[in-house]
């Protein structure tokens, strides 16, 4: 009898415990649902629905009152016709420009900041002051940076004329405007060395650095064999997310040319931006088709870049 009573009490306790655990679990799930509600709603409306709408717009005609009517493949036909047009090569040129500028700029802006960041992290001479100054383009308005750059480029012909050398105005001359813009993107694109990379290096386990030092590693070997492999996943994130916006980012052109950039220097993202914003609702279908074409091209390439970058991961490569 005593035993039975004890057993009953134990099972009651177990029941209570189980009930308590269940209550806690329900509370936790409720908490998760409440906290995640806004991010999920935001995702559903402003990402998923926007992108579905974007696909629908590519097959639609929109009037000034935002009424949508089915337009079949006409937007794509128009986009293809513009892309392969013999008279107007601007879209084709913009497409090529996007890739050329991306690779030319990013070879510099993904590698140099790592080295600069390591110098700042190691606190080599004057690197502290350099760190402060390098962020200036992000602090001051890009309009100011572009204006100074513009003035400098415009004054080059005058400066060189004194030496008897003929130098064209590289922002106006179509033969040089693209290269000049690419150089500008490189110049202002290395600022990540001031914050991101030194802080990433700081997150690396200091024991690894000590072990490398004991093994007689030089600073260069330390960077290459210890620090870069440790921060590789974050570098991969930068490269992959950067590449995914190759055909959608308007870039730096707006600060120089407004919506009137010459076609020699325009990029695909810039053209889509200008047509979407300044072309009015009637252009929405056409620009949506242009963007969808861009996604179809860029997405597999992004996956390829991600795959290659992950293959290059010396610590976590599977």
């Amino acid at each position, binding site marked *: 009898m005593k035993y039975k009573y004890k057993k009953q009490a134990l099972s009651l306790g177990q029941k209570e415990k189980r009930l308590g655990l269940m209550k806690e679990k329900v509370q936790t799930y409720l908490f998760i649902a409440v906290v995640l509600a806004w991010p999920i709603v935001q*995702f559903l409306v*402003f990402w998923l629905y926007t992108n579905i709408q974007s696909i629908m717009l590519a097959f639609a005609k929109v009037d000034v009152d935002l009424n949508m009517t089915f337009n079949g493949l006409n937007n794509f036909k128009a986009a293809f016709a513009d892309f392969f047009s013999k008279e107007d090569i601007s879209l084709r040129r913009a497409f090529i420009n996007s890739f050329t500028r991306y690779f030319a700029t990013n070879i510099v802006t993904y590698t140099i900041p790592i080295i600069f960041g390591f110098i700042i992290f190691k606190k080599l001479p004057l690197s502290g002051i350099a760190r402060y100054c390098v962020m200036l383009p992000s*602090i001051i308005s890009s309009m100011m940076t572009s204006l100074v750059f513009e003035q400098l480029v415009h004054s080059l012909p005058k400066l060189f004329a004194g030496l008897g050398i003929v130098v064209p105005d590289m922002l106006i001359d179509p033969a040089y405007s693209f290269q000049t813009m690419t150089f500008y993107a490189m110049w202002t694109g290395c600022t990540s060395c001031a*914050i991101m990379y030194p802080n990433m290096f700081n997150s690396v386990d200091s024991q690894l650095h000590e072990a490398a030092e004991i093994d007689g590693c030089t600073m260069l070997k330390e960077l290459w064999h210890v620090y870069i492999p440790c921060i590789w*996943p974050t570098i991969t994130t930068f490269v992959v997310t950067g590449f995914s*916006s190759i055909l959608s980012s308007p870039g730096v052109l707006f600060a120089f040319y407004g919506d009137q950039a010459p076609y020699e220097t325009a990029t695909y993202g810039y053209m889509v931006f200008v047509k*979407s*914003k300044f072309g009015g609702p009637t252009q929405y279908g056409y620009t949506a088709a242009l963007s*969808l074409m861009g*996604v179809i091209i860029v997405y597999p390439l992004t996956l390829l870049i991600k795959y290659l970058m992950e293959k290059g991961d010396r610590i976590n490569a599977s």
Partner: protein
Amino acid sequence: MRANSLTKGERSFKRANIISKTFFITFNILLILYAASFLYLVFWCLMNSVKDSFYAAYYPFRLPDKLFFSNFSYAWSKISITQWNGVLQKNVTYTYWNMFFYSVCFSVGMTIMSIFTPFLAAYILARYKFPGRNFLFSMAIFIMVLPAMASLASSLYIRKQLGIYDNMLFHMITAYGGFEGNFLLLYGVAKGLSGDYAEAAKMDGAGNHTIMYRIFLPMMLPTMGALFVIGFLGSWNDYMTIITYLPSTPNLAYGVYLFKENATVNQISLPIMLSAYLIIALPTIIVWTCSQKLIRGMAVVGGLKG
């Protein structure tokens, strides 16, 4: 023989050391030159902002012969724009203080939302196990890898349809998703934090909300603070979002953009324009200078693997 091989090893180490030192000395010099180019940029702006209009136009790279500090007060009085307000359906004149107010609201609001919304998603995904967690994480990675689609045209379309186009408050709330932008970084930080404090708090009877807001949020604040500074600087100078989505609430960056665009029509000279740029850059320079320690303490982690 042994001594010989040791010398060989030493020699190769010495060579590697020289290469390493040369490499870093070269890049250290390059970094200083790179930084100096930006310092010169500010110096050039300062130098030309106090020049006479004609002198600045003819000799933009010479030191000023006379200092015209009045350019700043003139620029201050000229930083105002009159433009069509789509909400009020009439032309409105925006003074410096109107635009300053919009700048503060826009920068603070946008930056807080760009950190807080991803924080919600990142914290839950990093600290809790629940059905659908892996799916949500994969979805976040997918969003980041998938190119930003035709979002501009459709985003404009949807916002106009919902009646939230040209509305700063709604734009702030809806602009940043929980699974984009700062999500990966905050996820990495939340995952890396020790759970000991949370366990102790739980034993003391703390609920999920208390653990989230009173234990983990303060621990993530240094990173979030640094992200706030970076985001604030970016938003302060952002005129593209204003042009695209919020034309009726012009901020200072947009004001300066129009200042430059209409310089010829309004007969605004280079020194006046530069003075206006410097006036607008002042708050961001102060924020950047004051936040050096915070920025240095920020942890940066986050890979695309689940």
